[in-house]
């Protein structure tokens, strides 16, 4: 076994530390299995010098070599005591990202686990919203009203504006397509049917998920991070009853109302284009629109919104409650909630489209 003895400089700083590192390098190139550092001459050491010392020890241990030191004096004894654990251990590599197979199984396990949690939340919410109030276990009516105001009344302007603009866009688009056939009056039908069946519900739900879904996730995630959720639990208050139920109930009530307003503003947007640009008399456009308005279409569009409301509220709460870590976790979970919201909206919509346009035709 070969041992190489190095003598430390009197002042261990950046320059002398680098020198010492070069000497050490030469030593292990020459095949030294053990480095013995004689610290007897050293009187003083600064941070960069200490860092070089750690670098020598670390590189030595990475080569499965030994690093020892001896003879340190009073002046740097404190340093050596504090550095001892770091000098003794092999520097750890940052943990590696998992491989392909591991990450696949991890994903699967995580997905199943998360799905279970989500189902649990659904069942709890169902109980605390639809059953518990009738058993006399309470419903936070004031919170429900506050949420309904925040989610509904304060969203009216943006929902109406977005639907109005979408109505305009659809009118422009379709009028240009059918102009060659002289069938521009049917744009009124298209807009009425389109908004009643799909567009009002989807557009409104997207606006609401970006607005309310994100807010729910961020609020609950922040509460969780700051241990407010634990505080609730510690008081013996059910988190689902206290936080989730008022939000779900409020959104179920409020979203259909918003969609109704969205429907009216979308049709109004189309009418604006039809009357001002396509040049129809208002009464003609009005009659044509009414002729295309079927209750069944409107009801079909409305039915979806209840499912949208439940999805947006529950996904927001679910992601909020799953948060880990601090501020970054809150951001991640909020993003995730909105992405999942919009994905779920489309999924629900596809199911409804399949039922109403395929099986029930």
């Amino acid at each position, binding site marked *: 076994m070969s041992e190489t003895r190095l003598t430390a400089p009197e002042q261990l700083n*950046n320059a002398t530390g680098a020198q010492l590192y070069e000497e050490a390098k030469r030593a292990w190139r020459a095949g030294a299995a053990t480095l013995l550092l004689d610290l007897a001459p050293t009187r003083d050491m600064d*941070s960069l010098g200490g860092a070089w010392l750690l670098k020598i020890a670390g590189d030595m241990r990475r080569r499965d070599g030994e690093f020892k030191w001896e003879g340190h004096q009073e002046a740097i004894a404190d340093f050596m005591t504090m*550095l001892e654990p770091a000098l003794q*251990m092999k*520097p750890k590599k940052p943990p590696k990202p998992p491989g392909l197979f591991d990450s696949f199984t991890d994903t699967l396990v995580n997905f199943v686990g998360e799905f279970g949690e989500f189902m649990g939340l659904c069942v709890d919410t169902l109980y605390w919203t639809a059953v518990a109030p009738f058993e006399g276990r309470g419903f936070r009516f004031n919170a429900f009203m506050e949420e309904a105001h925040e989610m509904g009344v304060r969203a009216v302007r943006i929902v109406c504006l977005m639907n109005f603009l979408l109505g305009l866009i659809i009118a422009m688009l379709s009028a240009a397509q059918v102009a060659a056939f002289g069938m521009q009056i049917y744009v009124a039908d298209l807009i009425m049917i389109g908004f009643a069946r799909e567009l009002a519900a989807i557009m409104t739900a997207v606006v609401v998920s970006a607005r309310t879904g994100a807010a729910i996730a961020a609020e609950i995630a922040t509460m969780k991070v700051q241990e407010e959720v634990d505080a609730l639990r510690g008081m013996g208050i059910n988190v689902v009853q206290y936080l989730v139920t008022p939000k779900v109930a409020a959104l179920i009530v409020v979203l259909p109302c918003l969609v109704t307003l969205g429907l009216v503003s979308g049709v109004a947007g189309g009418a604006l284009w039809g009357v001002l640009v396509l040049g129809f008399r208002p009464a003609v456009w009005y009659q044509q629109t009414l002729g295309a308005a079927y209750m069944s279409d409107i009801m079909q569009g409305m039915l979806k919104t209840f499912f949208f409301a439940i999805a947006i509220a529950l996904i927001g709460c679910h992601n909020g409650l799953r948060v880990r*870590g*601090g501020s970054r976790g809150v951001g991640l979970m909020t993003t995730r909630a909105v992405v999942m919201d919009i994905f779920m909206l489309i999924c629900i919509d596809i199911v409804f489209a399949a039922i109403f346009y395929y099986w029930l035709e």
Partner: protein
Amino acid sequence: MDDIIIKVTDLVAHYGEFKVLDGVSFEVKRGEIFMIVGGSGCGKSTLLKHLCGLMRPTSGEILYNNTDVAVMDADELAEMQHGIGIAFQSSGLFNSMTVGENVAMPMREYGNVDKVLVDDLVRFKLSLVGLAAAQHLMPGELSGGMRKRAGLARAIALDPELVYFDEPSAGLDPIMAAGLDDMILKLKRMLSTTFVIVTHELDSIRMAADRVLMLDKGEVLFCGTVEETKTSSIERVRQFFERRPDEFITQGNLS
């Protein structure tokens, strides 16, 4: 080099209409552990925020190495702040980075540290606060005391000549708190750093403080060594250091 590192003269500060600091003056000597104490809400943390330039005073002077922090522009202030270290009450670690990355951040951002040496310097600093094994953990995985020490490691990342530490031992058990005080004493000796510490732990003061500044209702009540507190002529100072309650609380408890 000048012996005085900080000299505060007639510092007045407001939160809106409310006057928090009312004519505070004191000096901090180079290389000492200077503790700022006082009851809750007396303006300790506010004073600290003014010292490190996070807040601007209404009037008064804060001389740091003979330049006034109160009138610096943004660039000068940043320059000054690069030369000091601040450890916050709730540690202020970035949650999205590992402990090691947190400590490396000042080195990489403005430290001019040789890139090959950053990792070892990080391990050196973490060793000084006894966290060598925690380099790759996330702040969320640390206990309260470890987080405080990690915050301290980040504060001393670039060997600042001055470190501000807000409530080092708040929320720690006595052993951990004593360990932290011991660590501060060692760091002061090893790196010859000046520490300005806000605290209300009497034990820390007795163990580590060179000099103490006591604030009360935004005014300086006392400034001197720990020994001098025992013989102070001011009743309130002796009351604080002998840990006696106010009269009305005692009576309130009896009735």
